[in-house]
């Protein structure tokens, strides 16, 4: 969300929505203590029906060909698709693909394992940030907003990038 928002100069609310998730979801963001948990999801274009709905960033040519409009900016999970790990083994889990069937021979073992590793690493970093956010929620009845969470996420990403450049310091969810 932070990467896309910054690169395209878009406010997060224009392409991200909150979707209720399981109480034990590691990436479940809360806005009030003991409240529901939400995941961040990319918006869909139009109403979501049984057959689904296209991602907000999908463009479609007049001959029906469609492709991601984010290119290199697309989320890591999209970049790694359809590679996944089952019992440590690389496999092609492309069941959601309607245009073709994938097999493990379509994958690049080194590149796809690296992509999956990056997905897991980023997910772990994000769940740590979400933990910090959730733990710092004020006592009821106070609530935090999505805008405040976005500010926190932007600051957490800055903190991480500064650490990558040689700085240090943990995530601080205090307002």
């Amino acid at each position, binding site marked *: 969300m932070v990467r896309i*928002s*910054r690169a*395209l*100069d*878009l*406010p997060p609310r*224009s*392409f991200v929505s909150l979707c209720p998730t399981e109480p034990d979801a590691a990436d479940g963001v809360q806005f009030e203590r003991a409240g529901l948990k939400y995941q961040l999801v990319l*918006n869909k*274009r139009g109403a979501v029906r049984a057959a689904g709905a296209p991602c*907000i*960033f*999908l*463009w*479609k*040519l*007049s*001959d029906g*060909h469609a*492709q*991601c*409009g*984010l*290119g*290199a900016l697309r989320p890591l999970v999209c970049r790694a698709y359809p590679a996944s790990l089952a019992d440590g083994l690389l496999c092609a889990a492309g069941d959601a693909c309607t245009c073709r069937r994938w097999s493990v021979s379509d994958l690049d073992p080194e590149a796809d394992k690296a992509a999956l590793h990056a997905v897991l690493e980023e997910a772990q970093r994000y769940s740590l940030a979400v933990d910090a956010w959730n733990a710092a929620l004020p006592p009821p009845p106070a609530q935090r907003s999505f805008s405040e969470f976005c500010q926190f996420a932007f600051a957490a990403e800055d903190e991480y990038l500064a650490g990558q450049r040689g700085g240090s310091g943990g995530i601080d969810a205090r307002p």
Partner: protein
Amino acid sequence: MRDPDAAGRPANPCASCTRRCCHHYIVTVNGYDAWVISSGLRLAPEQFLVPVAQKTRTPHGFEIDGSGRTYEIALDKAKARTKEKPCTFWVSLGEGIGRCGIYPLRPGVCQTYPAHIEASGLVLRRDDVLCPTEAFGAEVVGAPQWRQRLRQMQVQYDIYALAVARWNCHVGRTARPEHLSLFGYYNYLMHFYDRVAEAFGAGNEYDETAANECWGRLLARGFSPLAEDRPEMARWAGLVSAVREVAFGFFVEELVD
């Protein structure tokens, strides 16, 4: 979000885009733009290009039969209920917000909008700009990258004029006119720019910023380095010659007489 500049404008002028330029215009492109998109996205040119008939013939007007009618290539438009259809690569995010879906591969005319370069070399904002007035101050286009993009586009259009001239010569001379087609033209363009890319990457010296500036200045004076050797381009003569050779490497059998 990035900080606004001192004048209170967003760091990226397109952040306040009201999508008009991506809806209003028929975006004509050159062969290089088409090749960049086609090779970058692995799309056949006919998937995203449409021919647009020219009212007045220009050096970028190609023929597809012996009728003398000429066409330009333009990005296709998406299906929409609106009066002005968006570019086929436009990604609508709702509430009037949207972005280009091929931003790193967007054509030269999009990269340089809303600037233009005068014959004197002065870079100015276009008078007929569709952007919100607060988005692009006249001073924005004074940044060096605008000049570099404009010069690069001029050079690409000059190379494209050579590609088109070579194709039109083929249209006039081919022994099998029934084989001419729009797809044949697209196919030729892709091969042409594959070979031009090889020429650029074949160790020919080409300091892009300086060479494009020199090339662009010559064009403003009415000279194309592709049409005649110019002393100003001596440093890059190898590359210029290699581009010429690319053009004359096509349809060789028609050049015998």
